[in-house]
């Protein structure tokens, strides 16, 4: 059984909680005591119906305010697949938390209320999921029951969104008309919308092909940790030197010639171990240990790739940044700690090209700084080179986080467009 991670975006008003509640309920993943607790709390608060948002809004502040502040992770499985839902907040002030949830998602479900059509918020959610390059996007047009299951309403929203999507780099887009409340097209195909001939949402989630979303072409192995057993009593381990890490791209096999960066030396893979056992190949997202033929000086933060396919060692980075703190703005000359794969360096912002309006996609080239949750294109100069790919090619070697030198909080996320 494989694993699919998906993020849901939308507000409580769009029926997001109802949708998650239904997926969990219909897959028997809500337990009786959880449901009782939610029913009891709903009753205590004088709400007429069971408030399914309470299933994922787990924090005291969220329950008090009736909004989602941070990502909640929920789990369910069908006989075909295991699913991890990242239930992300819809409000603009929690964009950084939505970005957290979307960064690891294979698919995003953006919910739209059929009565309201596309809103500023749904456009923003779609933009953020494509900015983070979530490979698959589902626009779920919800509350179809409240518009009489009218095909014209659905078609209009679909056409309007399709037009908007041409401005985004959407890789795979699916439209599904649903009623989360009544279950139409959520688990089962709905008899109320015979004009819709696509799959139900769950069917789509279960059958979506995601194996090819990984980069299996560019060999990228960021060295995370060097394993050197200090076993005086075992001479066989005396010279053991294993390079441990998680494969970020490509397929590695014993016998492959590999290139080490930054040294530029080439060597051969003698063996690949996973948990102490030899394996015949390694590919994303496996965590393995490489044993190499030659004694090369390799440490954490280095990269192992193939001689004919190497990323540039780059100190000048162009990228889209999401700024995630209200403590201070991002502006030219901001100094930051940069973490990229297993390598941590320092950087300075040399240029802010523009700020993008997340609602209209308008580029403001007069912007001089970015505030909390603002997105723009920047240029960064690094103290040492990193071995990076464009984010469009690899989410793992094309993404980096920015850390404040003073407060140590994570203040930015960068999707690299160009590294040289």
């Amino acid at each position, binding site marked *: 059984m*494989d*694993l699919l991670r998906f993020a849901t975006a939308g507000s409580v008003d769009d029926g997001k909680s109802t949708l998650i509640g239904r997926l969990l309920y219909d897959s*028997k993943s809500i*337990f*009786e*005591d*959880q449901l009782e*607790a939610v029913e009891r709390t709903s009753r205590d608060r004088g709400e007429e119906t069971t408030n399914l948002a309470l*299933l*994922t809004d*787990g*924090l*005291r*502040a969220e*329950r008090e305010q009736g909004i989602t502040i*941070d990502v*909640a*992770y*929920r*789990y369910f*499985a069908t006989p075909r697949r*295991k699913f*991890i839902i990242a239930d992300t907040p819809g409000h603009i002030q929690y964009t*950084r*938390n939505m970005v*957290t949830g979307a*960064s*690891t998602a294979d698919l995003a479900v953006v919910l739209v209320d059929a009565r309201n059509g596309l809103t500023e918020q749904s456009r923003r959610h779609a933009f953020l999921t494509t900015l983070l390059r979530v490979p698959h996007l589902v626009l779920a047009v919800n509350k179809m029951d409240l518009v009489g299951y009218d095909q014209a309403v659905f078609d209009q929203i679909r056409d309007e969104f399709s037009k908007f999507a041409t401005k985004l780099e959407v890789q795979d887009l699916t439209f599904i008309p649903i009623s989360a409340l009544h279950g139409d097209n959520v688990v089962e195909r709905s008899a109320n919308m015979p004009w819709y001939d696509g799959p139900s949402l769950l069917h789509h989630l279960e059958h979506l092909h995601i*194996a090819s979303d990984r980069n299996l072409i560019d060999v990228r192995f960021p060295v*995370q*940790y060097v*394993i*050197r*057993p*200090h*076993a005086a009593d075992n001479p066989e381990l005396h010279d*053991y030197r294993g390079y*441990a890490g*998680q494969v970020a791209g490509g397929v590695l096999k014993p016998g492959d010639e590999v290139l080490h960066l930054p040294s530029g030396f080439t060597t051969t893979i003698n063996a690949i171990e996973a*948990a*102490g056992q030899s394996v015949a*190949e390694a*590919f994303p*997202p*496996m*965590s393995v240990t490489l044993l190499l033929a030659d004694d090369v000086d390799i440490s*954490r933060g280095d990269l192992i790739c193939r001689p004919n396919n190497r990323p540039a060692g780059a100190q000048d980075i162009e990228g889209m940044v999401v700024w*995630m703190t209200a403590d201070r703005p991002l502006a030219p000359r901001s100094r930051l*700690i940069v973490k*990229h*794969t*297993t390598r941590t360096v320092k950087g300075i912002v040399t240029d802010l090209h523009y700020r993008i309006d997340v609602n209209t996609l308008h580029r403001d080239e007069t912007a001089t700084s970015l505030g909390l949750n603002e997105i723009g294109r920047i240029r960064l100069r690094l103290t040492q080179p990193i071995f990076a790919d464009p984010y469009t090619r690899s989410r*793992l070697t094309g993404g*980096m*986080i920015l*850390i404040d030198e003073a407060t*140590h*909080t*994570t203040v930015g*996320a960068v999707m690299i467009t160009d590294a040289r």
Partner: protein
Amino acid sequence: MPTDYLLSQLDVLEAESIHVIREVAAEFERPALLFSGGKDSIVMLALAEKAFRPANIPFPVMHVDTGHNFPEVLEFRDRRVAELGVRLEVASVQASIDAGRAVEETGRWTSRNRLQTVTLLDAIEDNRFDALFGGARRDEEKARAKERVFSFRDEFGQWDPKNQRPELWNLYNTRIRRGEHIRVFPLSNWTELDIWAYIEREGLEIPSIYYAHEREVFERDGILLAVSEYLPRAEDEQPFMATVRYRTVGDMTITGAVVSTAATVAEVIAEVAATRITERGQTRADDRTSEAAMEDRKREGYF
């Protein structure tokens, strides 16, 4: 041999956890792994072993000992630690009480659950630990469902759920100042069933109380508690013998047993797959004090 480059969900979870564990070993100076002898920490310890093989686990294991443990679990803990050759730190709640750092609760509801936080935070300070692995899973409880894999704690050990560090891709921010620490949860994305499936696949040994056995118990608020010297009973709480097993393992005074005849891993998996009640809901008295009981304890520095 995989030719389609597909991994099962257990393989993906294992790879993710090992990545997290290695990241901590690489970036922190003084990490430690919290080990209770329960199934989740057993899986976590097994993953730590795999992460560094053939080398030894490069950090110690710490047990916060309430003094109210199941003897079977203590026996298992000592044996497992000896097999792995790791250093065991025991932080004792009794010692905190004796030193006047914590005050024992009294009455029928007495439990050392909350006192553990004092002992834990003192031990972190005494040992200058900068990262602590915990076996908590997000599917356990609604506050935990919200927590990051690398969860920042300030100098008072507090969690601030409204101001968590963003956490993107597999990039973890490990920066802290002196006195602060990070709680790291490598099993965040594992479910109870994943844990059992992994125990079965890897043939991991777990304490005997996870399997059906005869035990003297009494019922309180629908929870079957073990008869022990640590827990005073009311007159109407009559002990009786039952065939039970434990679905979770914690302090004897708050961990309930479930009626079960499951005697093997496969039987436990079948039982867990069919159950309609969460493990904490069925077996933990400590979560019942209020709706936000876990969030409140976590804010104070609890596991």
